[in-house]
């Protein structure tokens, strides 16, 4: 499959100023990052605070432009100012705080915002807004005002506002960081649904291991460089390396890692709780039968 987003040798820095506004150093946030994301993939970008993961995300739809190097979206260079709206329609972006990305006072009006900006005819807007709201399962709240909704519901409205544009890729910059566990689950379910059922490429920026474990592919970023790039099972097997860059591993891996250290021969790459529980159950009942 073709690549929807392609970053080649991207370098991004910002100047560090002293008290008088003179440049004293340059802070390099992204250091020679190359990454291609095939269409239809569910990619998680993992990194701790200040690793450059959000900065990378902002390059994917032209909010930030690389200092050197190049980012292309569906073959269009993001530096091409004339096609910036094509790029933003292809790659939608959802941010961390749902409160700060909802523009209108009524849910359905907010979902319509992007389409109104694009000059879509009213009947078509109505159709697409209803569709988008049904996709994120918020249709019955269409006439509510955003402040009556929970965090997870608001974030789903924000997602609906993006998918109403019918993007081919959706970038989510820590969409669950401000939500409670219930809201977090709702969002992960929605993202997976969009990816599996609608074939939308999903790029999830996160620092939650459990979320990254659900992706097709995980990219670990540290100090502006890509440290690891593989399927989740392979990534989370490298417990020592992840810990050395200040990241955790999912609780199941942590458990298996502990068991392994104490001399048991168990696999380390059981990422879901069910998988892990099943394995332990098998192992324990096999041990009992062997007695």
């Amino acid at each position, binding site marked *: 499959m073709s690549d929807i987003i392609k970053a080649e040798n991207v370098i991004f820095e910002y100047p560090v100023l002293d008290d008088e506004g003179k440049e004293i150093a340059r802070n390099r946030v992204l250091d020679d990052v190359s990454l291609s994301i095939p269409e239809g993939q569910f990619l998680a970008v993992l990194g701790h605070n200040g690793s450059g993961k959000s900065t990378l995300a902002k390059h994917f739809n032209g909010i930030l432009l690389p200092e050197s190097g190049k980012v292309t979206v569906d073959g269009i260079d993001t530096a091409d100012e004339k096609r910036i709206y094509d790029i*933003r329609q292809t790659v939608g*972006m959802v*941010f961390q705080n749902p*409160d700060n990305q909802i523009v209108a006072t009524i849910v359905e009006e907010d979902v319509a915002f992007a389409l*109104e*900006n694009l000059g879509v005819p009213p009947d078509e807007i109505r159709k697409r807004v209803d569709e988008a709201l049904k996709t994120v399962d918020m249709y019955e709240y269409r006439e509510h005002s955003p402040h009556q909704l929970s965090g997870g519901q608001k974030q789903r409205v924000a997602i609906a506002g993006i998918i109403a544009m019918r993007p081919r890729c959706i970038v989510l910059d820590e969409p669950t960081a401000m939500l409670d566990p219930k809201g977090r689950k709702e969002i992960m379910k929605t993202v997976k649904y969009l990816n599996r059922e609608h074939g939308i490429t999903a790029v999830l920026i996160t620092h939650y291991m459990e979320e990254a474990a659900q992706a097709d592919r995980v990219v670990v970023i540290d100090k502006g460089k890509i440290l690891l790039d593989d399927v989740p099972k392979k990534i989370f097997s490298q417990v020592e390396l992840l810990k050395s860059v200040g990241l955790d591993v999912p609780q199941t891996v942590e458990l298996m890692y502990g068991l392994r250290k104490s001399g048991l021969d168990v696999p380390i790459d059981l990422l879901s709780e069910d998988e892990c529980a099943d394995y332990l159950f098998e192992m324990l009942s096999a041990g009992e039968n062997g007695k």
Partner: protein
Amino acid sequence: MLKDITIGQFFPGNSLIHRLDSRFKIIMDIAYVVMLFLTSNYIGLAAAGLFMILIYVMSGVGLGLVFKSLRPIMPLIAITCILNLFFIKGDGEPLVNLWGFITIYTEGITTSVFMAVRIMFLIIGMSLLTYTTSPIALTDAIERLLSPLKKLHFPVHELAMMMTIALRFIPTLIEETDKIMAAQKARGANLDTGGLIKKAKALIPVLIPLFVSAFKRANELALAMECRCYRGGEGRTRMKQLHSGAKDYIALLIMALMIAELVLLNIYVPYLGIPYITP
């Protein structure tokens, strides 16, 4: 405390008043204000009041709200009354004469009552516009009504957008203010006691974090709007179109008749031997 403010709130409903075209409602609201200021006698004022009550009943908005909406402007009414009471000089002997410089005339009393009632009717009547019109319909109507000004390069769309965003963020910022106040109280800030100046000073530790956060929010919102291809009013479409029909024109006609009636009352009441007041 902050949640008690009812001015500017919208109460969804499906009455005839709710369904009127918001552009017509704004025009009629302005006409209503003009009407109140045209009236110069009690009969006209009573007629305007009856008209207002009738529309309130039609809209189905509870009358309890009416009094709630009046509470914040009570000080204004009181000041108006007091000023009118002491500064209006009549023709006859003053009713009260304290040491020669504090005087109250009959005309002062009648004028101040008249003014108080008029301000109350003004607030109550104007509140009905926001009670029965959704903020979106309201800003939409303002954008449309002002659109001729676009030719003079007046930023009509930007103004409407700013109003929408302001309305959107009022509940968010009120919630945030409550949180900051609670946080500052938890650290020992004293926000409720002391004189006016002390109270105002005590608000500084609340306002500064509120402003910082509002700017942060604005920054993020601008980014989110850009990601959704916002590029000003040029070439923009709307999901909900405003429609006007026969009911809107009839309502406008009734409003015009009301104004005509009050003007006629102004002219003829003096000849009917009923107390006449020039505000």
